[in-house]
């Protein structure tokens, strides 16, 4: 924990800027961007709820899809009830869905948190699978393959018929809940949850029923996830049982790892990153999942603190006036990563395309054995000497630069070490 203090204004300037950016985002008037941003908010809130368990209490849940899904389906049915004339105010849907999430979470958490570590993860996974099976079979409630549909109803002065209003609806709820989570983590109860992660036995001998504390943490985590699910229902106006699949549970873990579980807003950052990546890179390349996987592996290997860890590390260096020492290393490192990334993408795209079925068609129609592949506006010959040279030069240059950057970074660290 850093003892260096700077004015809160400087410290939270970036936070205020982000919030301002989010508030002003609909001014772009791009429905696509607003929709993607809404998805980012929902995935971010889900990851924040998930990380209350993992980041604060060290409990890795592999079954949070269950709580997300419960929030979604509860909300869809409530929306239908409103449509049929029930006097439920639409803005309160997340409250009721969240409450349901808390109740179910408390129940499931009671079982799961009797164990820790891998056993905890296995129990949560089992519960999620069970929920998935129930959702698949119970067609009356979950709608089977077709799923459940509903429509948003306006409430009082608020109309919810366009993307912008839905975006603001999600933004308000996300910000409120993130503030509430922040307050919870800063409270002595947050300390208790963290102490439990560090040394549960000691906390027990200080007179606390640690199991109850874990159940409460689980319930809150499930509640926040259910609210995220509720927002999802509000946005999509439909859902089916496939959202209960293990993939959903795995995604939130992935988002949190990439964002960094030790930084408060890390999970939200990771979720936004992956959502944007999936949307924009997914539109550009068939192989985007491979790239996402590579990023995941690289983060785990070289930046275990995630994007949030990198960001908070850099802001700390800036605060302590050390960023200038590291800046050359960072700049060269970024350039090296770019070179290696371009080389990797070239290889993946060429190999991927050549292996693909459309390339076989191209072979037949063009009559050539190795017709060129078009990438970045250039025709690449799969076995051409130019292609190999390009890739090898890039990787070679990238490696040399990266080694230089790492050595320079180490030197800067040593210099600071000897100064203090």
């Amino acid at each position, binding site marked *: 924990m850093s003892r260096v203090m700077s004015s809160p204004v400087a410290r939270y300037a970036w936070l205020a800027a982000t919030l301002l950016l989010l508030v002003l985002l609909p001014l772009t008037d791009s429905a696509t961007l607003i929709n993607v941003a809404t998805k980012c908010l929902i995935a971010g809130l889900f990851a924040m709820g998930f990380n209350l368990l993992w980041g604060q209490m060290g409990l890795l849940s592999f079954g949070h899809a269950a709580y997300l899904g419960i929030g979604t389906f509860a909300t869809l049915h409530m929306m239908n009830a409103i449509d049929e004339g029930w006097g439920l105010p639409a803005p309160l849907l997340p409250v009721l869905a969240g409450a349901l999430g808390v109740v179910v979470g408390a129940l499931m958490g009671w079982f799961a948190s009797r164990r820790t570590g891998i056993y905890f993860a296995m129990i949560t996974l089992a519960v999620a699978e069970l929920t998935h099976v129930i959702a698949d079979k119970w067609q009356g409630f979950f709608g089977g393959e077709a799923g459940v549909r509903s429509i948003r109803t306006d409430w009082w002065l608020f109309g919810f018929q366009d993307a912008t209003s839905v975006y603001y609806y999600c933004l308000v709820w996300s910000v409120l809940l993130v503030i509430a989570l922040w307050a919870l983590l800063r409270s002595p109860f947050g300390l208790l949850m963290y102490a439990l992660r560090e*040394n549960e036995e*000691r906390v027990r001998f200080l007179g606390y*029923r640690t199991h109850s504390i874990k159940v409460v943490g689980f319930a809150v985590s499930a509640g926040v996830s259910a609210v995220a699910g509720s927002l999802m229902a509000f946005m999509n106006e439909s859902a089916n049982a496939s959202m209960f699949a293990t993939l959903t549970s795995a995604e939130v873990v992935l988002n949190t790892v990439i964002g960094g579980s030790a930084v408060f807003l890390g999970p939200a950052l990771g979720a936004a990153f992956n959502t944007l990546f999936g949307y924009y890179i997914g539109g550009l390349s068939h192989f985007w999942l491979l790239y996402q996987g590579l990023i995941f592996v690289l983060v785990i290997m070289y930046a275990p603190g995630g994007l949030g860890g990198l960001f908070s590390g850099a802001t700390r260096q800036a605060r302590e006036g050390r960023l200038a020492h590291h800046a050359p290393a960072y700049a060269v490192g970024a350039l090296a990563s770019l070179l290696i990334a371009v080389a990797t993408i070239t290889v993946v795209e060429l190999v991927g395309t050549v292996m693909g079925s459309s390339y076989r068609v191209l072979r037949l129609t063009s009559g050539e054995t190795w017709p060129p592949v078009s990438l970045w506006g250039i025709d690449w010959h799969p076995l051409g000497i130019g292609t190999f040279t390009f890739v090898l030069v890039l990787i070679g240059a990238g490696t040399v630069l990266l080694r230089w950057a790492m050595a320079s970074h180490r030197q800067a660290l040593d210099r600071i070490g000897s100064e203090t």
Partner: protein
Amino acid sequence: MTSALCLTGVQKRFGATEVLKNVDLDIREGERHALLGPNGAGKSTLFNLISGRDRPSAGSITLFDQEIAGLTPARVNRLGLGRSFQITNVVAGVSVRDNLLLGVMGLHGRRWPFSRRGQAWRRIEESVDEVLERMRLSSERDRLAGDLTYSQQRSLEIGMTLATGPRVILLDEPTAGMSREETSHTIELIEQATVGKTLLIVEHDMEVVFRLADRISVLVYGSVLSTGTPEQIRADARVQEAYLGEATA
């Protein structure tokens, strides 16, 4: 004199191994009682049974006439018994102050502390400062407990035990690994902190034991060999043979 802690016929087996055979022990209210015994005699196991970490295989343990055998550690602590650990057991990743806060909050009934407001909270902060002062840790209050020196961590360990305000205090080798000066200070501190309270302490340092204890029990191979005043224990031929002999040789 009433008994604070009373063990009758306590046994503990781990599988086929019988660690405690038959322990009878009567700790009187207000006394400082030391537990001696060679390694493997079962001292730590006994502490684990009393403090609720493990359940005895047989026998009864009462704290002020209330049966506590088999209760959870949290229950035993709330009934007024606090313990320290032989291997330093602090919350390494939070500050020294927060470690003590964890103990004090519980004492003031703030076991679900969602806010830092109110009269009670001011009293909690005051008692934390008091314990910091007493344990000579005031200057380290904002450091991470894991960054403290070994002996500072030992002090913190004792401070956390005291912070929950127990009437009966169990200390497991509190001065292990400390220098002479630190040991002497820690013992002074234990003397001050246990005035009007009941202390059961495991300690290997004979000087410490004879200086601190009102009575001593010697545990050998899972049962109590002898209980008495320091003079009686010193004079006891069986104790000398079983334990003191090898220690002073």
